């Protein structure tokens, strides 16, 4: 499904080069629930961005369902993100001027899903993440955990092939984080959506079925757990 082949990423700031990824090779298969683990600066967010078509590698290739991303224009990449990928970020994930339901509907609206179907799917998904009664609340009226649940609902409802989550529990207390992880696991199993997240949270690593460890921009360990 996702494949990184000899991927290098070098950032240049005022003439100083920083190597974020050094020849990463990694394959993520359909239905996986995988964590990219590692300390800050290990390159996990960079790799996640490359898989998410948000950035392009300096060298090497990224394939999503057999399609090489570096050959696509920015408009095509945007279209690919819209149709095939879902995103969950650390915090402040939601559009503040939209209600929970409108946030969940947002990606479907971009996809051109008809209004009635959009509303029905959004309400069903909010009910599924336990927020059916908060559909009309704006993000600022919800707790961090509730906001992340809405973000999960938004990421799943558009029926993506892969959900990429960048440290989704970083700003949550452990109890809320665990509930969110359980929810994502449930979504992974129920909707057969591939989940790939970056984290340095031991609890997230423990709950993932596969953990890819990065250090200094290289894959140093790839551990698969029994389901």
């Amino acid at each position, binding site marked *: 499904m996702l494949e990184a082949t000899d991927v290098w990423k070098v950032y240049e700031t005022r003439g100083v080069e920083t190597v974020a990824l050094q020849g990463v090779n990694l394959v993520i298969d359909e239905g996986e629930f995988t964590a990219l683990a590692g300390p800050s600066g290990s390159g996990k967010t960079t790799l996640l961005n490359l898989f998410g078509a*948000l950035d392009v590698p300096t060298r090497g290739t990224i394939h999503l369902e057999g399609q090489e991303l570096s050959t696509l224009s920015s*408009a095509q990449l945007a279209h*690919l993100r819209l149709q095939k990928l879902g995103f969950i*970020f650390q915090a402040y994930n939601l559009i503040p001027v939209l209600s929970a339901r409108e946030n969940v509907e947002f990606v479907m609206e*971009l996809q051109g899903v008809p209004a009635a179907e959009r509303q029905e799917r959004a309400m069903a998904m909010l009910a599924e993440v336990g927020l059916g009664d908060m559909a009309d609340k704006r993000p600022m009226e919800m707790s961090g955990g509730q906001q992340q649940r809405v973000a999960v609902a938004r990421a799943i409802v558009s029926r993506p092939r892969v959900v990429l989550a960048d440290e989704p529990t970083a700003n949550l207390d452990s109890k809320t984080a665990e509930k969110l992880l359980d929810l994502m696991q449930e979504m992974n199993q129920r909707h057969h959506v591939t989940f790939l997240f970056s984290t340095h949270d031991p609890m997230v690593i423990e709950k993932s079925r596969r953990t890819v460890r990065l250090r200094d921009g290289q894959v140093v360990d790839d551990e698969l757990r029994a389901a």
Partner: protein
Amino acid sequence: MTALRAEPVMAAQGFLWGFMYALLRPVTWRMAWRNVGRNPRRTLIVGSAIAIGLGATIVAMAVNYGMIFEMVASAIRTEVGHVQVHGRGFDAKPGIEFRIEPDQGVGPELVAQLPEIVAWAPRVRGEGLVSSPRASAGVRLVAIDPVQEAQVSVIDESITEGHFLGDDPRRVLLGERLADRLQVGVDDKIVLSVQDVSGDLTGEAYRVAGLFRTPSRELDEGAVFLPIGEAQRLLGIGEAISEFVIVSNDDRQLAALAARLQERLGPDLEVRTWEELRPMLVSMIKIFDQMGWIMYAAIFIAMAFGIANVLLMSLYERIREIGIVLSLGMPPARLVASLMVESLILTLVGVACGLGVGLLGVWALADGIDLSAWADGLDAYGMSPVIVPVVRSSDLTQPLAIAVLTAILASLWPAIRAVRIRPAEAVRHV
């Protein structure tokens, strides 16, 4: 090669379609409206600046137009009428040699064929010398049929002393200023000398029936009104006239009326609308129109910087949010559309308030602005000392059109900045 050229064209087409599609989506407008309301104080400041600037301009333009339309109305009411018929050549060289003879079909029978004509009057015009025992002055003779003239002009209502012309043929009207110059009053005698149609000098003595005051200094200082029959006799032109003045019930169709009259009367006569007879007034209206565009453009160019600044500030505050929507797959065209709609909403709210402020200002001045203190200067231009502001529909649609253009232009720079945002960096922006 063709493929290479086709690619950017297709990309541009795709962008345009995406942009148009986004403009039609209710969610684009909903989000933009809510975004505009996110910082009420900032929105209020920019909205107020637009509203006050626009409102003041509308009032200023209304006063300007009030002034110029008053001049037009005054010219029509006091002398010109809507349409005039003359003998061919009169326009170039007004004089009794270019006359309308009784057999040329100008008169009540012509008027009867055209129902839009609501009033008409014949006149004889000439040049002459008016003398009193104390002074003399070169004057324009305006010979009128008192009954008919009262239908087309307000000269009968402009009498300040004495009375209007009546049955007595030996009576004339003088402007107050001319009477002052001649040092005569009502019932005093004056002598009118003219050159008749044969070129001989002739003259008659008349008594002053009344004095008039109009907004036209030219008329007040240099015209003598007398009965038309007297002038015809004095000038030796029989029953011929110099001018046939017409007032229509539809002042928007005067060119068509003039064309129909010209067609009926043939090439020996000239039919002219007030616009052709007073090209200076038309030029002034055009100049005011141009000034209106320039004033609105100046205001909105200044506003454009304010709006662009607000949008840029708002963009910077929402950089993470924009990173998120771009990550989610929002096409750049849609982002541009949403910023443009924000700019439009911000501008149009300001414009709506501005129109309100402007109309309120015009309403407050509806009784007119009294410029009597400067009346001596104003009447030289045929202006009334009281200016009533006039707002035309174009004075409201014009700023709207410029506002939309301003909103679009103001959003371009922020939009370019927005589409250059790299989502991967923006989502980590704090």
